[in-house]
């Protein structure tokens, strides 16, 4: 008999209960998987995804940004938008996580277009019952776009008469009319080359094949919407602009609607001038307390959190998450792990205290004295100069949370640790 089965207290049942809970609270799980598992509370952000998708559907060529801090739920909203558009039946949404396509540090003009072209071509080639002549045309376009995206190796004739060839011509060669040279290969890099630095190239090179591809796509689907996720990893607004500006201009001229995740720095300082170029900039703010706290608890409930959490401990986790969704999920998971290894039947106040302290300490690590003073000043006087680059960094790294355009607060978990340190 296995040792565990001979133990008192239903040890196996306890472990299974905790394992089930932990599966539902994975802060790094793919949004698609979490949605398919039915664990997402879709009304959390008052269905932002519906507004984004609706506008993309109604206004072909429109361009919208979804801006939010790290862990705010942007990917989930974009995936939900994609799903809604697909359900409408007359729109082809293409969700592209650009970070899984290429190394963003090498991203430059043309890369978004290249990625879009690849996805569109593959989707069209997968259409059931595609006539052969259509498939041949699409394959030819696909080939051109692939060359643009990934580069190509081509043969180049090098004449022996070329002084740079380094080749010598033998006067005694019997084949006097043979071509005087040889073939060699030359590699032309493409736009999606991780991680080598990409060359700056004109986006016009991809326009013609994309236009023809879109013509073919619109024979089947009325409109095309491209959803770019991952661009928010370009933390600085100017980097985002360098990557997106030219590509987004071409998307607009091609009447392709665009939804894109963008960094929170877009909302402040120099980033504002970039956000003005878009039809809508939707801010996914942090979920505030009060009425908002009911929403956070709904997130926990949807994932079965109350199997191990009492209402009091759930409230505590909601409060100390600050309304940051990933932190909410992390705290709920870590508290369960702490309860399990401590031998508790469910999550206790001491379990929650410990993981809140851990999270707060992790936010505290690496903060210099100036930044700590800024946080103390914010807590004391509610004063925060949001356009200062050092303060934008505090927003980006989630030490400071934005509840509205004027309501900024220190992350509650960090605040709980700060209050215990000297200051």
């Amino acid at each position, binding site marked *: 008999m296995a040792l565990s089965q001979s133990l008192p207290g239903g040890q196996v049942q306890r472990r299974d209960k905790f394992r089930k809970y932990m599966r539902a609270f994975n802060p790094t799980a793919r949004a698609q998987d979490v949605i398919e598992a039915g664990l997402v509370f879709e009304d959390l952000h008052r269905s932002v995804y519906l507004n984004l998708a609706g506008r993309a559907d109604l206004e072909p060529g429109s361009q919208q940004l979804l801006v939010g801090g790290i862990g705010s739920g942007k990917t989930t909203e974009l995936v939900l938008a994609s799903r809604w558009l697909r359900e409408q039946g007359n729109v082809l949404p293409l969700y592209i996580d650009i970070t899984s396509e290429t190394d963003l540090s090498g991203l430059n003009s043309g890369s978004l277009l290249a990625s879009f072209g690849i996805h569109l071509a593959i989707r069209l080639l997968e259409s059931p019952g595609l006539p052969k002549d259509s498939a041949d045309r699409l394959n030819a376009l696909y080939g051109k776009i692939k060359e643009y995206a990934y580069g190509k190796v081509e043969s180049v004739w090098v004449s022996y008469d070329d002084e740079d060839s380094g080749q010598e011509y033998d006067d005694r060669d019997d084949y006097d009319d043979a071509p005087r040279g040889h073939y060699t290969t030359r590699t032309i890099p493409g736009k999606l080359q991780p991680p080598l630095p990409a060359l700056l190239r004109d986006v016009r090179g991809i326009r013609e094949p994309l236009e023809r591809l879109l013509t073919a796509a619109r024979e089947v689907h009325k409109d095309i919407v491209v959803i770019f996720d991952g661009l928010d990893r370009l933390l600085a607004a100017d980097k985002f602009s360098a990557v997106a500006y030219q590509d987004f201009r071409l998307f607009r001229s091609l009447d392709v609607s665009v939804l894109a995740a963008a960094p929170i720095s877009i909302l402040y300082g120099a980033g504002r001038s970039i956000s003005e170029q878009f039809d809508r900039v939707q801010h996914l703010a942090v979920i505030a307390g009060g009425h908002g706290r009911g929403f956070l608890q709904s997130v926990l409930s949807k994932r079965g959190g109350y199997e191990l959490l009492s209402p009091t401990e759930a409230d505590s986790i909601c409060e100390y998450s600050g309304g940051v969704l990933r932190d909410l999920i992390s705290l709920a998971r*870590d508290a369960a792990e702490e309860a399990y290894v401590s031998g508790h039947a469910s999550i206790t106040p001491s379990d929650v205290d410990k993981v809140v302290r851990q999270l707060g300490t992790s936010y505290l690590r690496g903060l210099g004295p100036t930044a700590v003073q800024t946080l103390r000043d914010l807590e004391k006087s509610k004063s925060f100069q949001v356009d200062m680059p050092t303060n934008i960094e505090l927003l980006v790294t989630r030490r400071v949370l934005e509840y509205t355009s004027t309501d900024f607060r220190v992350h509650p978990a960090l605040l709980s640790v700060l209050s215990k340190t000297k200051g």
Partner: protein
Amino acid sequence: MPLQDSEKALNNLRTDLSSLLQKPTRVFNLQDHPFEQLGESLHQPGDDVVILAATVDPGSALWSSLDLIRSALERKGPIIFWLSADCVPSLSEHAPNIRSFIGGGIFAAGPDGGMMTEEDRQSRLQQLAEHYQLTNDEIVSRALSGTLPSEPHFIEWLVLLGRGDLV
């Protein structure tokens, strides 16, 4: 902790992880391993344990690049960052997406080579003994006779007793 102690602690961590999780553990030095190969290395295989180590701050450029390829870091097996203290500010500032994934899971290793003090070790052994209603000798005896299940708690128990050789 001093570099020599850190290397010893890293080797101990590698051994402990392999024992506890019953999987091989690979270590990649972020300063030495070619960055462009890192994404591929993490997925060949993708289910073992990986430690990404840095004894000095590898610099903002590497952290930013690592943050940008965060999706490439997603794999079946766990990833543990083993970093010197001076790396943490850089990671927080230049790789905030990775830091968000880590959440509260940042722990400081003590100069004694482990995160657990002797008091902690004894406390944990007592917890396990009370929970399973078994003594340390009984656990060792069952491990020697091959009747101890290879579940994480029992492996941990043996490691805490210094009997990782019986795993």
